[in-house]
């Protein structure tokens, strides 16, 4: 595009507009990091809690959830530094980021108001987490994430009605279906399609 004053046909104008708009897609590179990081962190916390509860005499197995606090810091630092390096910020990027920040705030409020009955919080957390996962899938046009969000809601119902011996395994299963499987598929897509 060197001859800036060159006259164009209508078709050429339309081609330029279409080509440029298609280049401003959501940056999904960051997305796979957060999905895999949180997928593995929550998977490890929920499995550890379950194993401690089932096979040890430890009286406070839910203490493992304190690992979420440094997780939030790591995630925010990564997001902030990657965002600063980005040469462009699309509306989709902003929507993606604020959807997850909104979830983080809602989850924090839930933990505060629900702190006295933590054994039932899992289904509510999955209910909440399903929403940003589902919406993010549409923002980046990635079907496995949409399906992942739906599995959160299905598992929230199962956890609610299942017995106490089954319910603790609901969160690790949700991490596999909602974060880890879509996360690795997204990583594969980013690495191979160079998006």
């Amino acid at each position, binding site marked *: *595009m*060197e*001859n*800036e*004053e*060159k*006259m*164009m046909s*209508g*078709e*050429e*104008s*339309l081609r*330029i*507009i279409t*080509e*440029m*708009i298609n*280049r*401003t897609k959501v940056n999904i590179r960051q997305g796979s990091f957060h999905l895999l990081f949180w997928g593995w962190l929550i998977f490890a916390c929920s499995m550890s809690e379950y194993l401690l509860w089932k096979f040890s005499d430890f009286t406070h197995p839910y203490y493992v959830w304190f690992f979420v606090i440094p997780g939030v810091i790591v995630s925010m630092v990564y997001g902030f530094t990657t965002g*600063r390096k980005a*040469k*462009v*910020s*699309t*509306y989709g*990027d*902003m929507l993606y980021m604020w959807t997850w920040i909104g979830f983080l705030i809602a989850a924090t409020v839930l933990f505060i108001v629900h702190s006295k009955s933590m054994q039932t919080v899992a289904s509510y957390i999955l209910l909440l987490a399903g929403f940003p996962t589902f919406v993010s899938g549409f923002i980046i046009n990635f079907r496995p994430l949409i399906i992942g969000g739906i599995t959160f809601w299905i598992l929230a119902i199962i956890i609610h009605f299942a017995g106490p011996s089954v319910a603790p395994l609901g969160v690790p299963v949700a991490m596999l279906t909602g974060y880890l499987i879509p996360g690795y598929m997204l990583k594969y897509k980013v690495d191979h399609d160079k998006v």
Partner: protein
Amino acid sequence: MTRFKELDPILHSQLRLAIVSLLIGVDVAEFTYIREQTGATAGNLSIQITKLKEAGYIEVTKKFRNNYPQTLCKITSLGILRFSEYITDLKDYLNPGIPGK
């Protein structure tokens, strides 16, 4: 080419149209990003960005990041309006006899 005289002359140029089409889909974009996406030279891009800025179609902010200058571009509400009008005019041209389609 006279049939295009009714189209906005600020937008009806390859590079300026490309810049505005890029900015319409983003919140903010760095100068280097626009240069990469359009394939234009820095000098030419700089001239066209200045023209768009003077017309009020885009805002240009200069900052420093890690001691390096950074030029950020963002489309204005006037730019969005003019781009929308340009698209309408273009549709009229491409579909003569069906105004606004």
